[in-house]
């Protein structure tokens, strides 16, 4: 019992101090027949036994680094400098709580302030919060925020919004009886504009979208604002912000996104990092923690969690969101990685990722029967295959190649998308990976 410091002698002495005879005297409020249930679980194990047990699971997985790798769709494999993992494992960051006592939590609070500043700059917005769970839940929260601001009850989603994100928005909005509409998920289509009307609270547009297309946020914003609707821009690949026009510069009202690809590992889908940025005039409608600058009693600069009258622990049933714990340590990983790259370094990583994707697209376009659908893309694009893409992905996986995400995985049972394969590349993609993918794909189709 290596995690339990009490000795049996301690326990006896402490029971005596407390004034009871046995430990179960302290559990006397528990119904007798429910106390000390017989658990069908193994007893404790030593460290190397646990390691053996879990390593066996890990070995059964094909890690992204085990071979050519082209999957994206909201989770990207970029290089994370060794410094990042060292910093986030510092005891003082790893094992601290939410910074409720600012006098002894300036470390956490200052990096949150730096994080908010970085996210605001990258998204081109005025303010950002201290993180959400992930991109999908941040998107759902943005829809709820737009509802509070506009007092309207209809959400319009572009067809290129990641289907998981769209489902999360739907799950949350329909609970409260709102209408949620989505344009068909068709690569390159822009049907969303016709769906905006005077009841629309917000239009949710992803760029680069799930098929990799870059969307004209400025045009959409103009149309939406003319009808009094807000625009929520979604970014699922944070690295794209290093090379693309920021959503904020195109006039959108809220920017949400997935920050995983800066500083954080793939982790089979979590923990990830929800980004949430907005206009200054809307800060009192924002969900989540906000860190602000202030001074201490001696006039020294310091940071605190602020505007908490929006939050559940103060406002309870009138809060802007129920969120409490968010993604603090993932935000630290983002902040450290961003601070190593700076804006220039991020642009370089983004450029290299874009070039990898361009080279991949060039190689695949040369294959008979494979059609690249994108006119524009950042580091991810969609190809149409002459056959079911899921089968192709499975057969390439047998050869140790993760070819991308097949349409059938994101839109199960939908015929129009089942031959589509969505392919992502990053600065880690090598020419040899591209060659391996192209030759395996040529053989498979």
């Amino acid at each position, binding site marked *: 019992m290596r*995690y339990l410091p009490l000795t049996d002698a301690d326990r006896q002495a402490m029971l005596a101090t407390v004034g009871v005879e046995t430990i179960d005297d302290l559990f006397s409020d528990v119904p007798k027949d429910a106390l000390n249930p017989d658990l069908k679980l193994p007893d404790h194990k030593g460290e190397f036994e646990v390691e053996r047990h879990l390593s066996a699971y890990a070995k059964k997985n094909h890690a992204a680094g085990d071979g050519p790798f082209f999957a994206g769709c909201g989770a990207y494999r970029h290089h994370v400098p060794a410094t990042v993992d060292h910093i986030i494992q510092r005891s003082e960051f790893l094992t601290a709580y939410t910074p409720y006592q600012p006098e002894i939590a300036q470390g956490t609070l200052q990096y949150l302030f730096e994080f908010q500043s970085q996210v605001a700059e990258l998204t081109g917005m005025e303010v950002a919060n201290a993180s959400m769970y992930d991109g999908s839940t941040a998107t759902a929260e943005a829809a709820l925020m737009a509802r509070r601001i506009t007092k309207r009850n209809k959400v319009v989603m572009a067809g290129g919004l990641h289907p998981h994100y769209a489902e999360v928005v739907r799950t949350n909005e329909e609970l409260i009886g709102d209408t949620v509409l989505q344009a068909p998920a068709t690569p390159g289509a822009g049907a969303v504009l016709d769906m905006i009307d005077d009841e629309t609270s917000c239009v949710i547009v992803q760029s680069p979208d799930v098929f990799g297309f870059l969307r004209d946020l400025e045009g959409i914003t103009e149309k939406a604002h003319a009808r009094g609707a807000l625009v929520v821009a979604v970014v699922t690949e944070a690295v794209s912000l290093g090379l693309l026009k920021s959503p904020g510069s195109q006039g959108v009202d809220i920017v949400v996104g997935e920050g995983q690809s800066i500083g954080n590992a793939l*982790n089979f889908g979590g923990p990830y990092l929800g980004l949430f940025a907005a206009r200054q005039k809307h800060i009192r409608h924002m969900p989540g923690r906000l860190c602000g600058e202030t001074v201490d*009693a001696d006039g020294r600069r310091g940071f605190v969690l602020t505007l908490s009258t929006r939050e559940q622990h103060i406002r309870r049933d009138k809060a802007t969101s129920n969120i409490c714990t968010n993604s603090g340590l993932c935000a630290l990983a983002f902040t450290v990685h961003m601070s190593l790259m700076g804006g220039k370094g991020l642009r370089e990583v983004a450029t290299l990722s874009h070039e990898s994707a361009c080279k991949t697209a060039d190689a695949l376009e040369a294959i008979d029967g494979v059609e690249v659908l994108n006119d524009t893309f950042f580091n991810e694009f969609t190809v149409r295959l002459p056959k079911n893409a899921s089968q192709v992905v499975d057969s390439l996986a047998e050869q140790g190649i993760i070819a991308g995400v097949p349409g059938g995985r994101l839109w199960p049972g939908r015929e129009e998308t089942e031959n589509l394969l969505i392919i992502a590349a990053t600065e880690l993609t090598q020419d040899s990976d591209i060659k391996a993918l192209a030759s395996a794909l040529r053989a498979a189709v």
Partner: protein
Amino acid sequence: MTNETFTGHKGLQLEVPLLFEEGSYEKAGVDLPQPSGTKSRLGDQGAEHAPHLPAFTEPQAMRHFVRLSQKNYAIDMGIFPLGSCTMKHNPRLNEKMARLPGFADLHPLAPEKTAQGALALIHELQDWLCELTGMPAVAMSPKAGAHGELCGMMAIRAAIVAKGEEKTRTRVLVPESAHGTNPATAVQCGFTVDKLPGTEDGRVDLEAMKAKLGDDVAAIMVTNPNTCGLFERDIRAMADAVHEAGGYFYCDGANFNAIVGKARPGDLGVDAMHINLHKTFSTPHGGGGPGSGPTVLSDALAPFAPIPAVVKEGETFRLIEQEEGDFADSFGRMVAFHGQMGMFVRALSYMLSHGADGLRKVGEDSVLNANYVRVRLAEEMTQGYPGPCMHEALFSDKWLKDTGVGTLDFAKAMIDEGFHPMTMYFPLVVSGAMLIEPTETESKASLDEFCDSLLGLAKAAKAGETERFKNAPYFAPRSRLDETKAARQPKLRWVEPEEGAMAAE
């Protein structure tokens, strides 16, 4: 000897400028290959310039963040007795396991065949959680405790919709002592909230609850052990009553640590409960997350569980990602991908380490430690409610009456003693509440030092040594921060000072 230094540093207490003040726009901490100059396919969406963000070289980054880290208190430094937060030791084996490439470098949409080990691990964790709670099903995707609450309440809502009662069952009963997330969650699910009064001994008033039940009640949301650190001894009667009225029982599982291995919510009539893996099962809190909030569900709610879900078919593990088969009535998806895998690995690592025998000891020692602190501190401080507690001890501020010292002052003086303060002013049902949760990972010596110090402070407060409290902390990296200024003039990001403004200051 002056108190001032030329640098502003004070020995080991090093001041840290902001990244934006000490970073560079020329140098960086990454060396990357040269781009090859491939023709861009960005169309007209390319930005002309890089984002305006400074960088550090690697040694500068290390120093910046290590210096920052030294301004934090952490569980690895000492007792972190925040009530209802379960700040226990975070084993490093868990960190090592979560970083195995087979878990950390695995894409969420990797073909199922290539992720069998990950799915098998999730499946084993599901088995542990179901067995430990005595519940038949668990939803793994919720990202944190409040998200788990949302999951449970969404399942309840879906069950009500399935019965065609969504127009009438709109009220949720929540005790006054509940976490703020409970009422916030209920409202997020389209319910209205009605407050449940407590009894004089700190429990839900069963009779008052029964009086409020009716065919418009969707659910009760009750924390057990509750936020006063007490076991709801009428829990079965409460469950029976709400079930009889056609409603459901949501149990807030934030305090599961007290009863892990000792009692199972499934044996007590609960329909849904979230489990904070970052509390009970030792995954680190990380200064505000990430958490993980798997939510166990009763037979009545299991059909409405969210997707995705991991199931075992023969020797193969499958990820159910659409509303099909057993999941045809699912309320849908509440998150992209499949939940907090990194936390799942850590939690299972912890469970395997403790085993059934060890987890029971966790519950026992957490309760013993809390009661030991309760009894020792009761010498000077007033208990919130009489009698033994579970894993956390609640005190009011009655004993500070007429001392001129308040709960906040007392807590800030604890910082000078080298401790993180307890939870303050929560639960709301006790005046000036101080809620202390030591957890099972504190040794007796650690508890004694803590109690000795608090008793010393209590005597000092009563003896009129207000100076020790009023401006505390004196020995922290910062003295009390002006929260009013922060809220009145929100400054939420770095803004480049105007040219020359720095010099003028």
